[in-house]
C-alpha cells in the first residue's frame, strides 16, 4: 500500500517505541490492522452519521513532538478545573513530572505514566490493555492502540478509599505545527476500592491539535469510580475520546462530562454492566457557540440481570453550533429486572444552530423498565416572562435560565468538591459569554 492510500494519521513517520515486548507489538498491529481496514469514520458509518471528521482529515497533523514541554507559568490552567486534588499534567499525552504535583501517594494507590509501566512492568498491564477497546466498531480507538506511547495508569488496591480526587490535566499544544496525539489511560479499581478521577482537557491556541484518547476502566466487585471530565480546549482543538468501563457486581461507575470548549469534541462512553447489582451513570452537559461541534455518544450494555443505569444530558446551542446526542441502552437476553433511564434535553438559542438526537433502545429481555425521552426547543417564554415580571431585564433573565439549564446536570455530581469546581466553571463560562455578548 502506498502512503497516499493510507488513512490519515498514519502517513507521517511514526514515533517508534523502544524495546517492545511481543504481546504489545501484536496488540499494536491488531489496532493498526483495524484502523487500516476501517479508516477514519465518515458520516456513512452509522455511529458517525452526525459528526463529520472531514475537516480534521484535511488538516495536516503531524505526530506530536516528544520534546514539547510547556513552562509552568504558560500552562492554560485557567481553562482547567481548579480543585484541591492530586494533580498530574500531561502535555500532548506525555506525562510531565516537572509540573505535576502528586505529593506523597496514599497507601494502596499506584499512579504512574503508562510508558513507565510498559517499560518496567509490562506484565502488570498486559491482561488489561486493549481488552475493552480493541474493536472493529472503534477504528479511532484502534488507531490509538496502534500508536499508543503514554497515558495515565491508576491502580487502587482492594478496599482502599481515596480521600482526595485525582486530577489529570491534559494540555494540547502544537509547538511548531498541527499535532496529533493518542493518550492511553488505564484505570483499575480492585474490589471495594473507591476513587474520584477528574480530567481537564485544555490546550494552547497556537496550532490545531487532535487528541484521540482511549480510557479503559475496570471496576472490581463493589468498587466505586466517580469519573468526571471537563472538555475545554481552545477553538483550534479537536478532541475524540472514548471511555470504556467494565463494571462488576455491585460496583458503581458514575461519569459526567462538561463540554464547553474546542472546535470539535466527541465524548464517547461505553459502559458494560457485567455483574448483578452494577450501576452505571452517564451524564453530561454542553454549551456550544460559534461553529463548535459537540458529540456525546453513549452505550450502556446491560449484560446481566438486575443492573441499573441512567443517562442525563442537557445542552445549550448558540450561534451556528451543532450538538449530537446518541445514547443507546442494550439489554441482553438474560438481563431481567433491568432498570435503565435516559433523557436528553437541548435548548436552541439561535437560528443556524442544529441538534441531532438518536436515543436508542435495544431490548431482548421482557422484565425490564426502560425509558428514554428527548426534547428540543427554544427557551420557555413563560419562564422568561416570570423573571422579567420581577424586574429582571431580558438579557439577564435569559442568561440566568441558560446557566440553570447547563448547571442542572452538574448538580447530579455526587462528589461535592468536584461539583463545586464544575459549578464555578459553568459560571466562568457564562461570564465569558456575557463579555463576548457585550463586546459584539
Amino acid at each position, binding site marked *: 500500500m502506498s502512503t497516499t492510500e493510507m488513512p490519515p494519521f498514519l502517513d507521517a513517520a511514526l514515533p517508534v517505541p523502544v524495546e517492545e515486548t511481543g504481546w504489545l507489538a501484536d496488540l499494536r498491529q491488531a489496532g493498526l490492522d483495524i484502523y487500516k481496514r476501517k479508516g477514519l469514520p465518515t458520516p456513512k458509518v*452509522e455511529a458517525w452519521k452526525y459528526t463529520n471528521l472531514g475537516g480534521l482529515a484535511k488538516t495536516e497533523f503531524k505526530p506530536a513532538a516528544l520534546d514539547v514541554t510547556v513552562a509552568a507559568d504558560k500552562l492554560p490552567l485557567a481553562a482547567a478545573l481548579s480543585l484541591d486534588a492530586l494533580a498530574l499534567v500531561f502535555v500532548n499525552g506525555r506525562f510531565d513530572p516537572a509540573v505535576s504535583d502528586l505529593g506523597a501517594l496514599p497507601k494502596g494507590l499506584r499512579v504512574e505514566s503508562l510508558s513507565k509501566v510498559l517499560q518496567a512492568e509490562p506484565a502488570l498491564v498486559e491482561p488489561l490493555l486493549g481488552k475493552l477497546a480493541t474493536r472493529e466498531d472503534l477504528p479511532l480507538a484502534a488507531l490509538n492502540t496502534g500508536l499508543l506511547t503514554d497515558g495515565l495508569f491508576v491502580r487502587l488496591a482492594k478496599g482502599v478509599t481515596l480521600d482526595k480526587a485525582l486530577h489529570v490535566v491534559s494540555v494540547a499544544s502544537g509547538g511548531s505545527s498541527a499535532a496529533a496525539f493518542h493518550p492511553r489511560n488505564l484505570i483499575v479499581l480492585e474490589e471495594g476500592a473507591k476513587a474520584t478521577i477528574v480530567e481537564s482537557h485544555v490546550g494552547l491556541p497556537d496550532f490545531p491539535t487532535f487528541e484521540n484518547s482511549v480510557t479503559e476502566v475496570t471496576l472490581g466487585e463493589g468498587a466505586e469510580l466517580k469519573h468526571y471530565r471537563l472538555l475545554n480546549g481552545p477553538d483550534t482543538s479537536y478532541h475524540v475520546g472514548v471511555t470504556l468501563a467494565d463494571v462488576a457486581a455491585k460496583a458503581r461507575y458514575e461519569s459526567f462530562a462538561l463540554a464547553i470548549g474546542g472546535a470539535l469534541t466527541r465524548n464517547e462512553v461505553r459502559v458494560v454492566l457485567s455483574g448483578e447489582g452494577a450501576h452505571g451513570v452517564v451524564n453530561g452537559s454542553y454549551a456550544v457557540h460559534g461553529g463548535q461541534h459537540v458529540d456525546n455518544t453513549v452505550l450502556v450494555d446491560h449484560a446481566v440481570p438486575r443492573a441499573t443505569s441512567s443517562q442525563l444530558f442537557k445542552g445549550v446551542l448558540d450561534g451556528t453550533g451543532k450538538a449530537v446526542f446518541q445514547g443507546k441502552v442494550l439489554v441482553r*437476553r438474560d438481563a*431481567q429486572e433491568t432498570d435503565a433511564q435516559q433523557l436528553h434535553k*437541548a435548548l*436552541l*438559542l*439561535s*437560528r*443556524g*444552530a*442544529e*441538534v*441531532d*438526537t*438518536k*436515543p*436508542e*433502545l*435495544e*431490548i*431482548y*429481555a*421482557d*422484565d*425490564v*423498565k*426502560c*425509558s*428514554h*425521552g*428527548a*426534547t*428540543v*426547543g*427554544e427557551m420557555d417564554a413563560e419562564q422568561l416572562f416570570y423573571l422579567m415580571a420581577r424586574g429582571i431585564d431580558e438579557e439577564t433573565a435569559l442568561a440566568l435560565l441558560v446557566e440553570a439549564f447547563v448547571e442542572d446536570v452538574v448538580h447530579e455530581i455526587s462528589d461535592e468538591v468536584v461539583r463545586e469546581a464544575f459549578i464555578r466553571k459553568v459560571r466562568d463560562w457564562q461570564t465569558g459569554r456575557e463579555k463576548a455578548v457585550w463586546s459584539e
Partner: protein
Amino acid sequence: MAATDTTVDTVREVTEQYKYGFVTDIESDMAPKGLSEDIVRFISAKKEEPEWMLEFRLRAYRHWLTLKEPDWAKVKYPPIDYQDTYYYAAPKKKDGPASLDEVDADLLETYKKLGIPIQEQEILAGVVAVDAVFDSVSVATTYKKKLASMGVIFGSISEAIKEHPELVKKYLGSVVPYSDNYFATLNCAVFTDGSFVFVPKGLRCPMELSTYFRINEKNTGQFERTLIVCEEGAYVSYLEGCTAPQRDENQLHAAVVELVALDDAEIKYSTVQNWYPGDKNGKGGIYNFVTKRALCKGKNSKVSWTQVETGSAVTWKYPSCILQGDNSSGEFYSVAITNNAQQADTGTKMIHLGKNTRSRIISKGIAAGKSDQTYRGLVRMQGKAEGARNFTQCDSLLVGDKCGAHTVPYIESRNPTAQVEHEATTSRISEEQLFYCMQRGLNEESAVALIVNGFCKEVLQTLPMEFAVEAQKLVGISLEGSVG
C-alpha cells in the same frame, strides 16, 4: 430488438384472450420468470401503457440495476433472488386447493374467529369462486358510478394511466421519485396494479374508499402502486388492504403508496395488514417492503396514517409525511404486533419544512414469541420550520423472554422555535394487571389480549369503526400461543 417485438406480440395475444373471459389458462397469463428490460416492456405492453409510462419504468429499472439492497434495517432474511420471481403473475394460483376441505385447518379457524362469511373464506383461501368474484366486481362498479357522478375518480392505477394520463403523469413519482430507494425503484419498474384516487376541489368524499373489493377483483400482485390526490379542500378516508390472512408463499411485496394533499385537503389512510406471517418456525410468509409517503403540499393540509401491522414474516415500512405547506399536519398511529419468528422494522418520518407544521407520532409495539421488532423514526425540523411542533410517543410491550423490542428514533432540529418531544418506554405486562383480569374469571390468554388492547387503545380508536372491531380481534389472534 426482435426479442422485444416478439414479446410485445405475445403479450397482445395474451391480453386479447384475457378480455374474453376470466377463466384463462394460467401459464399464458404469466410473464417468464426473472427480471430484465424485456420483462419491464412486457408488463408495460400487457397493460397497454403509453410510451411515457414505459419510459418511467425503464428509467427506474436502469437505476435499480445500480443500487444495492439496503441492509440497515434490523431484519434478517435469506438473500432474495430477484431472478427467481415472477413479475407478472396470473390472478389464480396454479396449485390452489380445490375446496375448503383441503385448506389448512389453522387458517380456517382464524377466519372463523374473524367472522368472515364462508364464501369470502373461499376466496381468501385461494379457492376461486368465480361467482363471488363477479359479485364483488359489480359491487365495486356500483360504488364507482356513484362516486364518478360526484367527480371522484376511484379505480385501478392501470385504468387511470389510460383514462386520466394527465393526472397520473403529474403526480406519479412526485412524492416517491423513481430513484428513492431499492424497493421503491423496483416497484416503479415492475408494478402491476394498485389504486388511484382523485378527489376534486372542495369535495368531501362521502364514503370510505376501500381496496378490499377491488383486490378481490384484480387479485393484485406483489407490486402494488397506490396514488391518492386530494385537491384543495377535499377529504378522503381510505382503507387499505387485506383484513384477513392471505395464504401465500414466501413472497416479496414491494408496494409504493403516494399521497398528495393540496391546500386545506385531508387524507386519512388506514391499513390493517395481516399478510401470512409464516409458520411458527418462521418458514414462509411475506416480505413486506413498502414505501409509503405523503406530501402535505398545500397550506393547512393534513395527512393521517393509521396502521395495524400483525402479519408478514419481515416488515420494512415507514409511512412518512413531508410537511411542506404552512400549518400542515401529519399524524402516524401504529400498532405492530409480532409473534413467533416475525420481524418488523417499522416507523415513520416527519419532515417539517413549512411554518407552524405539526406532527404527532403514536407507536405501540408488541413483541411476543421469538419475534424482533424495531421502531425506527425520523423527525426533522428544517431551518424554515418556524413554530413547528412534534410529539412522539413510542411504547413497547414484551410478551415472553425470547423476543426483542428496539427503538431507534432520529431527531434533527435546525430551528430554535421548533419544539420536539420524544418519549419511549419498554416494559412487560405487569403481574398485577394480569392477576386482576384473571381474578375476574378471564383465562390468561384473554387477559393478555384485553391488556394489549388497552395498551393499543390510543391507536385503535383512530381507525374507522368497522376496521377497529376487526383490529381488536386481530390483536387477540396474533398473540395466540404466546402465553403460558
